[in-house]
């Protein structure tokens, strides 16, 4: 339950306070065990007794512990960034922005509908006025056809101006929204590309580190018999100075050989990583440029489309001249029979054309808004998808790291156990346990094992 809090211990899985905290409080525990060890009976009395080792302490002193700790840190970092609920999405405001966008589009659609309604009313009023004027002109000295036409045109221009202003406002709002979305998308793309490059780099670095660790372990294992033989020889009191010096030189030569081979491998790996870093940087820049260009192109296309649509809408606002009334729920268009045939025909033609254009425009405007909304919804869904893929990648990375960590821990533990077995045999201990909760009378072999493990560093 507190696995990540108590890093570097295999006991985490047992979710136990004591076992877990033993690893955390290693220094204190070491002191305690050191005290008990200092007062225990000397070696000859240990034959046939029970021994124990604190595996976590030994693992921490192993030459490959740094690599193990690096795995732990990497896993911890991935855990924090990939699985923490508060950072589940790469852009935490994604949903909020999507809602904003949806709201803005809905508002714009509402405005369009209101505008169309308004135009419809104005049109009806215009038509009513025109028909009334025409009737008055025919029988009661009203305005002439030219005056009616002029009045109609003036009203139409007024309408057109109002609609154009509103359309410009909508267009500006739409442009601003697109710019915001573009910025968000570019940022998200940049982040995703950087994360991908970072992941690739880290994976390569870990792969190389693993190889270095494997090489180190392989050399240590291969040289272990010779090293042990030399160390055993050095513990012999009967060894003369020349032989002792020779053995020490041989030990030093083994260490140097391993150290040189490892350093050479590290140098090569470092060069590889530098080259990879440069390559990834170029790749990120290229990919980002391409994505930015695509995003901009898409937005400019949408903006141009929207601009054209609004321009059509504005240009199509001609002045109607036919009265439309609703009688008993049915739309009725009336043109006075007393009007001169030419004027009547012209007004009817104007009305018919305008009505068709008006309806087509209304339809186009609404369809345009809906399409834009769907397009932006899709683009946001793509962003979500990108984020999901990033999350899945992080999970895969965690699993891979855990597997590598487990393998490395197994190798370290196996080597430690080999050392402990030798010590136990030398001291005549019959059985050695690890993962103990409390030592009461057993022999602590940890200090001896620590010396042997530390000698692997030399």
């Amino acid at each position, binding site marked *: 339950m507190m696995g990540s809090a108590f890093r570097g211990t295999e006991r985490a899985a047992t979710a136990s306070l004591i076992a877990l905290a033993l690893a955390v409080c290693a220094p204190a525990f070491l002191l305690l065990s050191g005290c008990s060890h200092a007062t225990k009976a000397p070696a000859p009395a240990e034959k046939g007794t029970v021994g124990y080792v604190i595996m976590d302490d030994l693992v921490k002193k192993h030459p490959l512990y740094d690599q193990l700790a690096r795995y732990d840190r990497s896993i911890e970092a991935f855990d924090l960034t990939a699985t923490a609920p508060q950072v589940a999405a790469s852009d935490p405001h994604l949903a909020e922005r999507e809602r904003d966008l949806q709201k803005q589009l809905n508002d714009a659609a509402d405005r369009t509908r209101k505008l169309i309604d308004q135009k419809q009313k104005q049109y009806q009023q215009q038509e009513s006025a025109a028909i009334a004027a025409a009737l008055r002109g025919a029988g009661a000295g009203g305005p002439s056809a030219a005056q009616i036409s002029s009045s109609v045109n003036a009203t139409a221009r007024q309408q057109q101006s109002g609609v154009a202003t509103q359309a410009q406002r909508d267009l500006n709002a739409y442009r601003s929204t697109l710019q915001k979305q573009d910025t968000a998308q570019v940022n998200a793309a940049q982040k995703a590309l950087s994360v991908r490059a970072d992941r690739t780099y880290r994976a390569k670095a870990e792969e190389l580190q693993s190889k270095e660790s494997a090489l180190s372990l392989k050399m240590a294992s291969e040289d272990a018999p010779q090293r042990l033989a030399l160390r055993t020889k050095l513990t012999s009191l009967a060894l003369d100075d020349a032989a002792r010096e020779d053995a020490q030189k041989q030990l030093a030569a083994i260490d140097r050989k391993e150290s040189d081979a490892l350093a050479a491998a590290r140098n090569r790996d470092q060069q590889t990583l530098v080259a990879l870093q440069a390559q990834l940087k170029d790749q990120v820049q290229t990919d980002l440029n391409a994505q930015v260009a695509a995003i901009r192109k898409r937005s400019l296309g949408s903006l141009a489309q929207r601009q054209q649509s609004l321009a059509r809408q504005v240009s199509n606002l001609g002045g109607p001249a036919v009265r439309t009334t609703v009688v008993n729920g049915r739309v009725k268009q009336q043109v006075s029979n007393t009007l001169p045939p030419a004027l009547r025909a012209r007004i009817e033609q104007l009305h018919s054309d305008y009505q068709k254009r008006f309806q087509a425009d209304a339809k186009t405007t609404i369809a345009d808004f809906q399409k834009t909304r769907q397009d932006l919804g899709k683009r946001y869904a793509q962003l979500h998808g990108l984020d999901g893929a990033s999350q899945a990648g992080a999970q895969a990375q965690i699993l891979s790291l855990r597997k590598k960590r487990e393998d490395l821990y197994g190798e370290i533990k196996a080597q430690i156990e080999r050392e402990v077995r030798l010590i136990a045999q030398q001291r005549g201990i019959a059985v050695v346990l690890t993962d103990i*909760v409390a030592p009461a009378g057993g022999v602590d072999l940890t200090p001896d094992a620590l010396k042997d493990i530390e000698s692997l560093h030399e």
Partner: protein
Amino acid sequence: MNQLFARGRAVALAFALGAAILATPAIGANDVTDIGSLDQQALAALPAFQTANKQLNAYGASLQKQYLGRAQHASQSEQQRLAGEFQGRMADKQRQLFGPLFGRAQVAIASVASSKNLTVVVDKRIVVFGGQDITNNVKQLLTGVGDPVPPVTTPPPSKVGYVDQSAIDQTPKVKAVTDDFLKFKQEQDKAAADKLKGAKTAADRDNVLKDYRKTLDDQQNKTLKPMVDSTRSAIGDVAKAKGLILVVDKGNIVFGGVDITKDVTDKLK
């Protein structure tokens, strides 16, 4: 198989007697000829356990579907009730499938332990060196014809004790400290995750993680360590009073041993 087993017991008895004679000068509080080990993973790989496991998994998948179907439109409280109900059904099935197998395995382990004069059998994972590995003997009994025969004698008192650490974790003092720490850790997780989001370079990330670890380590030393020390001290005191050599976690005990959990929890109250 029974003949083989009988012969095995005779050989084991002879070996135990021989070992006892050889070890006479060292017999005392730390005599270790009575510690055995068992590879529990090897037992879990036996066909009978594998089959039961497959059946349990299939049942679990079926239950999962049923649960999702019923919980889909249920309220939160109803979902909790359903989750409890389905967990109970799963546990029942587990008992039904594994209960007889575990019972049979326990008898086999007890039988082998008795024949080898073992007072305790621990999980092989915690044995670095020595001890008597009884895995093959137990496997032979479990895969043989007929049921293993229970031992007629009870094992002698062991010098290895054990505690149920989950029970110790539930004692009020330990639980309060643990809960506080977990709460603190959750807060730190969130803070570190937020900071990691703003980290622009690998060095920034490393610094965030370094701070995070240090904060947790400091908090552990401040709150958990004193509790751990007092708990360990209590376990050590009880162990010494009972003449035990070592104390291990209950999860690592397969057979025998001395349970000192209650003594420790009483001492911690």
